């Protein structure tokens, strides 16, 4: 029941809705007790042959009124209680989303997106259920159950009530037991289904290998087994699920049986009328729901609590990077100085970067090269302050990046990441991501700079073409160039390219670099790359190896040194000549 205390803030916030909701719900329950009473009275009148058309008409009119009132109260409490629970889900979802936007990139790398999605969907709906169905079952099992039992014992016969209700607790216990059993088995069935999903996912992504090795039939067999497992687990669920109705029917029938046997005895003894007995059995029917509700209540509450705990834990995660107190809101500008003695990621102990001392003047270009895992990306992510450096400092125009707000720091920097993230929106909207108010001319201008304009015009709907998961599939190179255009549109003082030209061909690379040079005079650019041609023109190139700078200088200087850079350069020249067909055509 703790969930109701945990959600108290919400009940307080929506107190009027919940108050009236519960009032109407109780009223509904009360009203539903009246028709059986009417039936009892009429049966007795029929039996004693004292029924007149006036009396009958009166009761029928009464039933009509009951119908109308019940319909209205039923409508109202559903609207109020279920409506509120939807508002709760809506609020929690917004809170979670807002919280997500504050968490550091590191958080999203550690946690699986699928899990986070589950919190925002399954857990929220379990909490919503607790605030809706949970309240309903709580109120109904308590008040309606009590009302029916009180009515039965006060107005008809407390002895008969007691006798008849003997089997009911068995039903409550059984259905509760089924409920928890069902929950467990359902979890297993879900897991089997998700395995099946993974299997199909693997199959679809490995389709070429499967076809090349003639694995189709073997795959069908594996799938058949996985699918059979899903069937078996679901049958296990069905075995429990199918128990509910027969159990209830049988126990309720047994209650009827007791009611009739003992009721008849009282009728014969004259302590009860046959009409009362009829009403009694009808009331009995109305007890089934509150009893069931009592069983459901426990399951709903249990699930809601667990889910709400998970949501709260998630909301309690503190962002790793926050603005320092008194941080300046002035957008930093000027030379970039890296002074890092060493840096390692929070989870691992080994240094990713050590002894990095580089200064790049405003308006210059820094090239960063080196093998995979040498620390290129880390170096770039540090200036975005995705992590804080303990031993060292990065300064822009003499100000440590830690001493300005995140907002100010990010305003100074444009970032083109390694993996290109486009959103499900039109190409124009994607390019204008950082500046939604940009005009079409502005968008096209940067698209031209990024050499993507022509490609875009080839799409059926041009700049209005929708991309992302639900839209047109773009090639890696096209995605890269759109991300470049996106970063250019913001026109930041510092532009970061994290291996952002890897998927474009050499000719396009040259034209993009050319455009950058003209466009970004007096602005600083940091480029990391595998292909050395992308940094050839840089004012300073550093070669990283295992987090250390092993060579530095301009392209010409590095070629002279005959070190790693020079060898790599020669090698890449050859390869590009070969794969370009020797510059033919």
């Amino acid at each position, binding site marked *: 029941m703790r969930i109701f205390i945990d959600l108290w803030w919400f009940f307080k916030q929506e107190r009027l809705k919940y108050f009236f909701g519960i009032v109407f719900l109780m009223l509904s329950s009360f009203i539903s007790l009246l*028709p059986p009473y009417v*039936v009892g009275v*009429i049966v007795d009148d029929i*039996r004693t042959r004292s029924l007149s*058309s006036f009396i*009958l008409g009166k009761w029928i009119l009464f039933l*009509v009124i*009951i*119908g109308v009132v019940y*319909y209205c109260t039923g409508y109202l409490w559903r609207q109020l209680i279920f409506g509120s629970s*939807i508002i709760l889900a809506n609020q929690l*979802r917004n809170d979670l*989303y807002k919280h*997500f*936007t504050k968490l550091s990139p590191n958080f999203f790398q550690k946690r699986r997106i699928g899990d986070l*999605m589950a919190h925002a969907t399954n857990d929220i709906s379990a909490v919503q259920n607790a605030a809706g169905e949970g309240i309903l079952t709580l109120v109904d099992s308590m008040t309606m159950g009590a009302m029916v039992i009180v009515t039965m014992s006060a107005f008809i016969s407390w002895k008969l009530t007691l006798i008849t209700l003997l089997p009911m607790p068995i039903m409550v216990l059984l259905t509760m037991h089924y409920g928890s059993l069902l929950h467990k088995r359902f979890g297993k069935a879900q897991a089997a*289904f998700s395995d*099946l999903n993974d299997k199909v*996912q*693997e199959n*679809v992504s490995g389709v*070429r*290998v499967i*076809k*090349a090795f003639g694995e*189709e*039939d*073997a*795959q069908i067999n594996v*799938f*058949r087994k996985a*699918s*059979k497992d899903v069937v078996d687990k*679901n049958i296990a669920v069905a075995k429990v699920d199918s*128990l509910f109705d*027969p159990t209830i029917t*049988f126990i309720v029938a047994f209650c009827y*049986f007791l009611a009739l*046997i003992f009721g008849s005895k009282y*009728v014969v003894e004259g302590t009860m009328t*046959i009409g009362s007995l009829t009403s009694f*059995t*009808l009331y009995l029917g109305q007890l089934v729901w509150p009893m069931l509700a009592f069983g459901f209540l426990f399951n709903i509450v249990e699930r809601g609590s667990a889910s709400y705990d998970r949501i709260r834990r998630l909301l309690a995660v503190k962002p790793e990077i926050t603005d320092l107190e008194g941080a300046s809101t002035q957008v930093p500008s000027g030379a970039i100085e890296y002074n890092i003695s060493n840096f390692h990621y929070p989870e691992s102990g080994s240094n990713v970067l050590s002894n990095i001392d580089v200064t790049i003047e405003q308006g210059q270009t820094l090239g960063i090269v080196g093998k995979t895992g040498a620390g290129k990306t880390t170096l770039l992510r540090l200036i975005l302050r995705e992590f804080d450096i303990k031993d060292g400092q990065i300064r822009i125009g003499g100000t440590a990046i830690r001493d300005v707000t*995140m*907002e100010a720091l*990010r305003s100074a920097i444009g970032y083109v*990441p390694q993996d290109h*993230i486009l959103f499900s929106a039109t190409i124009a909207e994607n390019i204008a*991501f*950082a500046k939604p108010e940009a005009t079409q001319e502005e968008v096209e201008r940067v698209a031209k700079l990024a050499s993507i304009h022509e490609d875009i015009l080839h799409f059926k709907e041009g700049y209005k073409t929708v991309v992302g*998961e639900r839209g047109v599939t773009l090639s890696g190179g096209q995605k890269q160039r759109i991300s470049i255009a*996106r970063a250019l549109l913001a026109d930041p003082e510092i532009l970061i390219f994290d291996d952002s030209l890897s998927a474009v061909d050499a000719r396009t690379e040259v034209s993009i670099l050319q455009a950058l040079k003209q466009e970004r005079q007096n602005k600083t650019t940091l480029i990391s790359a*595998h292909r050395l041609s992308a940094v050839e023109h840089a004012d300073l190139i550093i070669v990283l190896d295992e987090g250390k700078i092993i060579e530095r200088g301009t392209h010409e200087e590095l070629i002279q040194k005959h070190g790693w850079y020079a060898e*790599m350069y020669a090698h890449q020249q*050859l390869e590009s000549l*070969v794969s370009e*067909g*020797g*510059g033919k*055509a």
Partner: protein
Amino acid sequence: MNEEQNLTHLSGSYVMKRLLSYLKYFKRKVAITFIVLLIATGADVLGPIVMKVFIDNYLTPRVFPVQPLVFLAVSFVGLYAISALFNYYQVLSFQKIALNIIQIMRVEVFAKVQHLGLRFFDQTPGGSLVSRITNDTETIKDLYVTVLSTIVNSTIMMIGIFAGMFFLDVRLALICFILMPFLIVLMWVYRTLSSKIYRVTRVKLSQLNAKLNESLQGMAMIQAMRQEKRLRNEFGQINHDHKTAMLKSVRLNSLMLRSAVYSVYLIGLMMILSFFGIQSFDNVVKIGVLYAFINYLDRFFDPINQIMQQLTIFQQAMVSAERVFGLLDDERMAPVQQGDSSPAVKEGRVEFRDVTFSYDGKTDVLKHISFTANPGETVALVGHTGSGKSSIINLLMRFYPIERGGVFIDGEPLTGFSDDELRNRIGLVLQDSFMFVGDVADNIRLSHNQITEEQVKEAAEFVQADKFIEKLPNQYHEPVGERGATFSSGQRQLLSFARTMAQNPKILVLDEATASVDTETEEAIQLALSKMRRGRTTIAIAHRLSTIQDADQILVLHRGEIVERGTHQELLQKGGLYFNMYQLQHGKGLENVSAAK
């Protein structure tokens, strides 16, 4: 959006008919279960009649002979015991049938997908395909469970109750029949309205999830571009729309579900009371009959409530079924053997004769390609992205049908070979070395169980993958996770080499990786590749100098055409490409350059 366009629209009745046709696999079971259902319903319906007999024959006249009463009591409890047992059996049995039908349907869809051509996979986004095989069939499962369990059950129950009513009093039963039009109208209106609202809520929910998923994936970008506030508003808007749609559905349910059904119940109750009341003015009324009628009325509305709650599921399932059947009827099949000559690959001579090819039927990606690779020779394909290298490989693997020109192996047309012969004799090594969940040995052997543990090890040794495998804690039984993420790309490459070598193919088709891996593995890969090529006809998309240098024939492709061809030496003499290369290497040995990488 794309997904919807691919759909051929099938009519509702056709979909329903086809769905029901799956029942044919379980004729006997369905028949037995149906009989059990009838018995259970019969027992349910008889209960109130026993009560009526008790009230009218014994309670009202106050006569209580022991024997008949014991008989009545026993039969009352007995009837409900039968009803409980038989109902358990029938509900469970219908669920089992539904689940087994889905099993058949799933395997059918999956098998169909396995035999679809790559053209289909090129045109269908992976995510939506997965969702058709799993989620859509899951929705159809709900339909079977609903239709078989709830709707059949409820309908039979309602018929049973009417039968009981007619048995007790024909006139009153006829009067109660008046309720049916009310209920049917109610259901029809609810169905129409709810389907609209339901569709909207589903759309909103999927938008909500899509937005959230996308935001979570791109959060770093959103933050770097300082768009948190805007995205929060956008999400808030979708969330708000979703809430509005949900509230609408709550309103509809409040208006039309239980409360409305209860009103109809009250109308029924009023009719029964009036009927007996008016009768009682002049006649003696049997209280037992009245009791039984009210009891029936009580039960009559449960099935109605159940059916109404299931209506939305029903509609969603029809949409899913349409999608699944659309997939089952897809005609973009993989090319298969033509004729039944079944030649064998003996020497491994590969020949392309004037092959022109287009993926979409509009732009030709290969134009008049002709070349011959003699047994044991290596042909290197070079050229930049989009020049047609991969298409040549795709055709040789018979991934796509060849429409113009011909490909021949040992002089026999490619189309004549059986699938098995082709897959066993042509070994493909892809750039992206795909790993399956399982262990290392599984990944080398795949489904070819005749490959022994020894042969697996030999294959690994041959490509020198044994060194790293033996360092693994479980060696050849080291588990491989999703997409082989625990292995480096170099290791994955070596494993995929071993996989190909375990098949001992006659012809090797190689799509060399462009991405550079670490120096150590790189050397192992180079070495493995040259060993693998020995004695095998090799068609390679070459990126590595060593592969190109060793090739017996180099084809330089540009925009789907072969623009230059010859051996290394010939091309060197021709000048152009190889002349340039030679110049660059002068004074700086190639070995040096390769080693540096």
